[in-house]
């Protein structure tokens, strides 16, 4: 089986290797070829005898009868494996290419077939001989010399052999085999070489002229055959040199793209791009491993590529550009793409005959058509997305357009080859397909776009970080001092935001003339910069309101009014007014009621600010006697959570308050337990009345 899909990048400089070639003269009698050998080897161009089908076994030896030297193959077809001048394999670029049996009277045939050739070998005594198997073939073979099995390319232990992509093979020719047929020691010996070939049905769809031998085998002195064998390996390595380079490039790009998520976690495109590039790396590695080793069979390699990686690649690239250009409509498109990828995998499975003729040929043809339609649909979707991208993002869209067009066209390799449109080139013997050029262009465009997007994102993040820092500084400015002493009161406060900017707020505002103090404490729903902005708004509103009233209810009404109509702007809040004589009036909008000497004040619940116009807030009055201690807390204290999800809870808060901790001690206890939200604590201690 010859390799069809290999990707881009070239590795130059792998040299060619040559060997001496002896003249081959066909004999008149018995279709015998005479080879005169010095230290040389000869290509066995023919005449070969050929037939489709498989040999019956000799009941005595259990060896194929068609491998026997005495078998009469005169009624078989005669085949010449002499290549046309400069002929190369259209998919692998290997030299000395000849079309297979489907181009020589057996179109559509897959299965077993036999080649036989009879040669006279005039070897020197003690000279080791070897056969170089065809380096370009479909798909596997067993080799016999005078009825003795020399070996195989592929695993023929079952009736449906395991096959690999074409690779050179070398088989030593045992001297016993040669001598048995020799007329005398040192004289010419007649050797009948027989190849038992097997071709998988899926190979019919993968090249234009498949079937059996595509490059003539080599026979000669073992050292010279070995040199030819090495030269063929170099040719094979050079042909697919792009694949491992491509795998490494994709791997690095994929890891690079994924690592960008550490810089910008909000942008999913890096993960998608990384996943698509890593799957591309797997596909390229699959190509190289399939072409150069026998660790993975040709069918398995094709299954990985056609049933998994190619559908994933289509869907992945659609999603990359969908996210890249920020498209959201139609919202069903990602699901449709997933369905199309699945349909493509199923169509390839049924249309490529990878599992023999489990699917009738007409049905297979239909699914091959479905595969074509799905690929066209992917092409249309990608072009639509890129057109949208051009409309939305201008330059980026234009850069992506040619890469996407080439990528999509490259995916129609079979169809373009059938239309005799050249999509494969072999500069310096390296296979380069249209797909390689498409991916090369795509890689360059991607690298440029990724760097551009990352720089833009980093600039935005720097701006955002600066904004947050400035907001943090502003918040520090608007927070009261941690220790405030007023006539008759000592007020201590502690503030621990969960993020850089907090949503808790409090203000301590002494009355300018009557010795009273207004304390307003609250918690904006949410955290971060948005909550911090609302805090600034509320603090401004509190400062404005106290110019005309210190009444807690008025303050809450005013704050409620400020928040109404703003989307997602709610806050719990309490306002506490304490006169110089210790008379306290408290209004509450859903905030945790204060603790007086360790016990929570019993208050009716009330809606937070910003929920409904004209909300009725709960209120109460009480007196603070000398040494009374009033503690105002935000919910961040009781709702601290440990690693197991257990809440700090109200009971722990009450227990802690029994020891009359400072605000800092309270906050630290919750912080150590597992801070989730902003924590604010205000402790008001009534000192000697009036003084």
């Amino acid at each position, binding site marked *: 089986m010859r390799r069809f899909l290999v990707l881009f990048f070239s590795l130059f400089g792998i040299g060619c290797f040559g060997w001496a070639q002896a003249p081959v003269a066909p004999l008149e009698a018995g279709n015998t070829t005479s080879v005169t050998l010095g230290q040389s080897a000869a290509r066995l161009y023919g005449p070969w005898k050929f037939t489709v089908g498989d040999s019956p076994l000799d009941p005595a030896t259990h060896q194929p009868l068609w491998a026997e030297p005495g078998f009469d193959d005169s009624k078989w077809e005669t085949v010449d494996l002499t290549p046309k001048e400069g002929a190369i394999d259209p998919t692998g670029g290997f030299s000395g290419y000849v079309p297979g049996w489907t181009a020589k009277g057996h179109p559509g045939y897959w299965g077993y077939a036999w080649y036989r050739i009879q040669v006279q070998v005039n070897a020197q005594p003690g000279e080791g001989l070897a056969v170089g198997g065809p380096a370009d073939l479909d798909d596997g073979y067993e080799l016999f010399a005078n009825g003795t099995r020399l070996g195989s390319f592929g695993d023929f232990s079952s009736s449906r052999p395991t096959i690999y992509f074409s690779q050179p093979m070398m088989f030593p020719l045992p001297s016993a085999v040669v001598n048995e047929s020799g007329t005398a020691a040192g004289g010419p010996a007649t050797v009948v070489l027989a190849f038992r070939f097997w071709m998988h049905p899926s190979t019919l769809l993968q090249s234009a002229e498949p079937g059996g031998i595509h490059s003539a085998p080599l026979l000669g002195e073992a050292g010279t055959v070995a040199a030819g064998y090495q030269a063929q390996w170099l040719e094979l390595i050079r042909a697919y040199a792009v694949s491992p380079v491509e795998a490494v490039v994709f791997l690095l790009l994929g890891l690079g793209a994924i690592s960008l998520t550490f810089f910008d976690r909000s942008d999913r495109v890096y993960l998608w791009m990384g996943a698509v590039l890593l799957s591309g790396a797997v596909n390229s590695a699959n190509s190289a491993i399939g072409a150069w080793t026998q660790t993975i069979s040709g069918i398995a390699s094709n299954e990985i590529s056609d049933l998994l990686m190619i559908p994933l690649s289509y869907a992945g690239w659609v999603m990359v550009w969908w996210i890249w250009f920020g498209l959201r409509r139609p919202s069903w498109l990602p699901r449709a793409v997933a369905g199309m990828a699945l349909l493509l995998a199923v169509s390839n499975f049924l249309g490529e005959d990878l599992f023999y003729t489990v699917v009738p040929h007409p049905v297979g043809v239909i699914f091959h058509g479905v595969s074509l339609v799905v690929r066209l649909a992917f092409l249309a979707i990608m072009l639509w997305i890129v057109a949208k991208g051009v409309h939305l993002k201008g330059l980026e869209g234009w850069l992506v357009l040619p890469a996407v067009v080439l990528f999509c066209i490259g995916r129609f390799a079979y169809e373009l080859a059938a239309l005799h449109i050249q999509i494969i080139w072999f500069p310096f013997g390296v296979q380069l397909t249209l797909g390689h050029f498409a991916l090369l262009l795509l890689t360059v465009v991607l690298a440029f776009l990724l760097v551009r997007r990352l720089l833009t994102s980093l600039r935005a993040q720097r701006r955002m970080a600066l904004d947050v820092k400035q907001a943090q500084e502003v918040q520090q400015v608007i927070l009261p001092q941690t220790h405030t002493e007023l006539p008759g009161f000592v007020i201590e406060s502690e503030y621990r935001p969960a993020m850089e900017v907090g949503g808790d707020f409090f203000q301590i505002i002494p009355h300018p003339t009557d010795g009273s103090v207004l304390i307003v404490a609250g918690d904006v729903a949410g955290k971060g910069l948005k909550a911090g902005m609302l805090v600034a708004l509320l603090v401004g509103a509190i400062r404005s309101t106290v110019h005309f009233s210190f009444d807690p209810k008025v303050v809450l009404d005013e704050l409620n009014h400020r928040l109404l109509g703003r989307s997602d702007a709610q806050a719990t809040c309490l306002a506490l007014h304490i006169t110089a004589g210790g008379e306290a009036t408290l209004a509450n909008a859903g905030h945790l009621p204060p603790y007086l000497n360790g016990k929570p004040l019993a208050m009716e*619940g009330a809606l*937070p600010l910003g929920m409904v116009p004209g909300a009725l807030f709960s209120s109460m009055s009480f007196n603070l006697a000398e040494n009374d201690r009033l503690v105002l807390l935000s919910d961040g204290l009781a709702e601290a959570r440990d690693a197991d999800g257990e809440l700090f809870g109200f009971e722990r808060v009450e227990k802690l308050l029994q020891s009359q901790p400072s605000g800092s001690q309270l906050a630290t206890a919750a912080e150590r337990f597992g801070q989730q939200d902003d924590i604010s604590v205000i402790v008001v201690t009534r000192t000697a009345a009036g003084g």
Partner: protein
Amino acid sequence: MQSETKARVDQITSSAGHPVSVVRFEGDIASTSKDAVLGTFQTLPRESANKVLLDFSKVDYINSSGIALVIQLLIEASNAGQKVCAFGLSPHFTKVFTMVGIPKYASLFPSQGEALAAL
């Protein structure tokens, strides 16, 4: 640490034979739970939307933004004349719900049976 909010709707019948929608929440309820909380509520079937139970028995945590969403839901229900009861809250969140005035819009019960009986 915050887990995604899931919501599903069960249709049951009260002892009086009225259809009742039970919205069962799971996970944490926070600012990101808007679709799960308000979205689910807004898609309740019309025939069983007059009587609604909110099941919080599998909710681990509700932060201030989550509570604001629940209040929004209850205000919408109140404006639409729907009767809503909630059940399955932990003692901690029962206290928090009470603090923010939710019982004015929805009675709180320990179990589904008690909540259903009160509808």
